[in-house]
């Protein structure tokens, strides 16, 4: 049960973040955090299928995390988080078309290893 939840968290996190990034890029850059701007952003999101799909994936991941936290410690969620960093960087390059060079790969690998070490 624990490992099934870990797998669900990693997969849904990745799908959610990729869809949200694609959807928010389509909406255009948010220039400030004034209430009016944020309200406009939320209204656009309500009609943005990519971000709505991203929310659905993140919601599944969130409830899986709540379940995991209620039966074990935070450290058990760590492998899911570490795997997400590498998987998301890969998809950022090949699906989102981001310019991922050695610095960003190194950053993702360092963070993934660091997250695992932090759980000790």
């Amino acid at each position, binding site marked *: 049960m624990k490992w099934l939840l870990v797998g669900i968290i990693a997969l849904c996190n990745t799908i959610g*973040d990729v869809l949200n990034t694609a959807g928010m890029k389509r909406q255009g850059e948010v220039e400030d955090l004034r209430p009016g701007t944020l309200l406009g952003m939320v209204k656009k999101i309500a009609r943005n299928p990519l971000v709505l799909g991203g929310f659905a994936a993140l919601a599944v991941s969130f409830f899986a995390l709540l379940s995991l*936290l209620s039966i074990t410690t935070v450290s058990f969620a760590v492998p899911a988080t570490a795997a997400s960093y590498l998987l998301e960087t890969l998809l*950022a390059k090949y699906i989102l078309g981001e310019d991922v060079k050695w610095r*960003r790969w190194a*950053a993702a690998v360092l963070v993934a290893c660091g997250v695992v070490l932090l759980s000790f």
Partner: protein
Amino acid sequence: MNSGNGGQRGKTQGLVVLVIATNVLGNVFLSRGMHQVGRIVSFSPAEYLRAFANPSAIVGILILIVWMLSDLALLSRADLSFVLPVTASAYVLVALVGHFFLHDHISWQRWLGILLITGGVILAEETPARTTTGPPERLR
């Protein structure tokens, strides 16, 4: 390409700070709340509503809503492969706050983890925040 001039980069960095701060605070409150609520493993959403009766969990969820909105605003301005490593400084912050304010013990493995994540954050910060111009071609 970079997200324009210094002002634009400044806005993006401001969002980065907000995302990190709300992530740390939201998770601290939610984690405390969920431990008070107790064990929930269910496919029924009603079970999770029990969490909404706990003040710490409610505060945590409200802060995480702010985190979600600021994270989306940040993703509208910056690459996912930039945002991910940079916002990982939240882990370092949680560990250091625990050490210096709550006197948590940090093992050498955890210090090494803090060092690696900090290295990752610095490397990612050396790259331009945004390398794309429009929405991705595959998900337009």
